[in-house]
């Protein structure tokens, strides 16, 4: 074969493969994907901007006093309405939700990871957990309404709301704790058992301390979910137009239910109160995420 024909073949081969259209299609597809991915980011930015803007309008145009807002209970008069009652309600809810869900969640996770034999029953329990995590939060409200408020005659008090939230977030605590426990290497368990420790001594002395940062992080994230939950509290029966500072055994309201009330009612001023409430709620959420992030980075060890 001569050199000429060879070169000719190469030219033919190049013209045979026309990549222009392929490249254009590639680029368009890439741009479309970037655009779609940015959609979520843009929406988040708009949401935050919307809340900040409405908060500013409330403060500047309607002269809502931030000091009053943060230090007073609710009021029927929007200019004197405060958020402190709702914040106290949320604080109590958080305390009791933490108390109920932490022990229940970590206890279940320890049983499933450290004690449970690998049987059909165990697998069913795990499948049930996934299912529980998918039950709408409003249904947990109905559960609390039927069991704690009516059957146990607790009435629509704060503790009943906390129990609803605790049952709602326990699956989250369980799954996070299970992951943290699984990350503890088996070598450590064996090392402990071989020195004559019982299963429980091993769990308490070696496994739980190593898994604790992951468990704490997961619990904080679960509480972050609980603090924004509205529907279960409404079903338990919160106070519409709350004027008092609720205690654990009082009728109650919380930050999200107060925000719902303000946002739902048609008076325009209330919309700005709702925005300020959201600003407070989101700031607290951000702080919780910050703590969770800190715990994860500072204390979590990879083996």
């Amino acid at each position, binding site marked *: 074969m001569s050199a000429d024909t060879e070169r000719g073949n190469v030219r033919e081969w190049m013209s045979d493969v026309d990549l222009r259209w392929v490249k254009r299609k590639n680029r368009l597809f890439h741009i479309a994907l970037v655009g779609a991915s940015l959609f979520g980011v843009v929406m988040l930015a708009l949401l935050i901007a919307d809340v900040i803007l409405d908060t500013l309008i409330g403060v500047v145009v309607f002269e809502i006093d931030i000091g009053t807002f943060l230090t007073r209970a609710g009021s029927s008069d929007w200019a004197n309405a405060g958020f402190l009652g709702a914040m106290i309600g949320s604080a109590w809810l958080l305390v009791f939700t933490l108390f109920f869900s932490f022990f229940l969640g970590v206890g279940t996770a320890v049983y499933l990871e450290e004690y449970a034999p690998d049987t059909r029953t165990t697998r069913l329990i795990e499948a049930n957990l996934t299912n529980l995590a998918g039950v709408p939060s409003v249904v947990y409200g109905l559960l609390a309404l039927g069991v704690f408020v009516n059957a146990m005659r607790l009435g629509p008090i704060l503790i009943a709301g906390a129990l609803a939230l605790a049952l709602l977030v326990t699956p989250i605590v369980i799954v996070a704790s299970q992951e943290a426990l699984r990350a503890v290497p088996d070598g450590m368990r*064996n*090392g402990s058992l*071989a*020195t*004559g*420790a019982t299963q429980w001594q091993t769990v308490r002395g070696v496994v739980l*301390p190593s898994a604790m940062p992951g468990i704490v992080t997961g619990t904080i994230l679960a509480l972050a979910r609980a603090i924004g939950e509205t529907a279960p509290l409404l079903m338990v029966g919160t106070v519409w137009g709350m004027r008092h500072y609720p205690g654990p055994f009082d009728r109650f309201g919380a930050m999200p239910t107060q925000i719902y009330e303000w946002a739902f009612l048609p008076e325009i001023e209330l919309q700005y109160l709702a925005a300020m409430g959201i600003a407070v709620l989101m700031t607290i959420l951000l702080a919780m995420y910050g703590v969770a992030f800190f715990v994860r980075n500072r204390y979590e060890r990879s083996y």
Partner: protein
Amino acid sequence: MASNTTNDTESLISTEVSVDRTHDQPASPETVVEATDIDVYYGDEQALDGIDIEIPERQVTAIIGPSGCGKSTFLRCVNRMNDQIDACRVSGELDFHDKNVYDDDVDPVALRRKIGMVFQKPNPFPKSIRDNVAYGLNVQGKTEGVDERVERALRGAALWDEVGDQLDSSGLDLSGGQQQRLCIARAIAPDPEVLLMDEPTSALDPVAASKVEDLIDELVEEYTVIIVTHNMQQAARISDKTAVFLTGGELVEFDDTATIFEDPADERVEDYITGKFG
């Protein structure tokens, strides 16, 4: 791992392995652990097949054999660590001082307080050096004289000189060889009778490995040591008795180390020792 490879290669080349164990052996040492017809199954798979062996007190007994021959499985039978594996079934009799440890009335936790174990991969806890060594003492409720016991265990594990002044630093900050000696200190602190060692040097570099070997030489003054190794040189260097397991979970020959390495009765053992097989 590099060191093992080198050692294995060596053993493949040299057909003569020198035995330099010179423990003062009593005429007829008492038997501490006696296995009779031990079978182990993982699910349907048989891991050990009719093991009979008598482990003498205060000597080093080495268990050698190719990978997958069940030597670690046997070790884990002695302190019932196999209980941790759901699919594992053990039959036969394994006596610790004439008491079958698989009897219903034996508590594996109590058993493990008499029989310490050191693992292939160093597994210190994410605690201070002191708490690592004192762990077994705490667990077993031996709360008196903890500091002295910790020091004695660390000296016994030849680690005191290196870490005696930093007992509060984390056990995980030590080097691999130090970690393994820390694990040995942890195992001997509660003063068990028997020390099981599952390839304790295979994850260490040669220098660290030889330190641990020297240590085993001293430990045998006080403890009965059963060591699993796939390094034949090591077995020859440190053990009084050697058991050879071969594929299929069978104990082929068990005798004085010198006999095993110089004049084995079984042809397969000779083939394995000289590197023709395994």
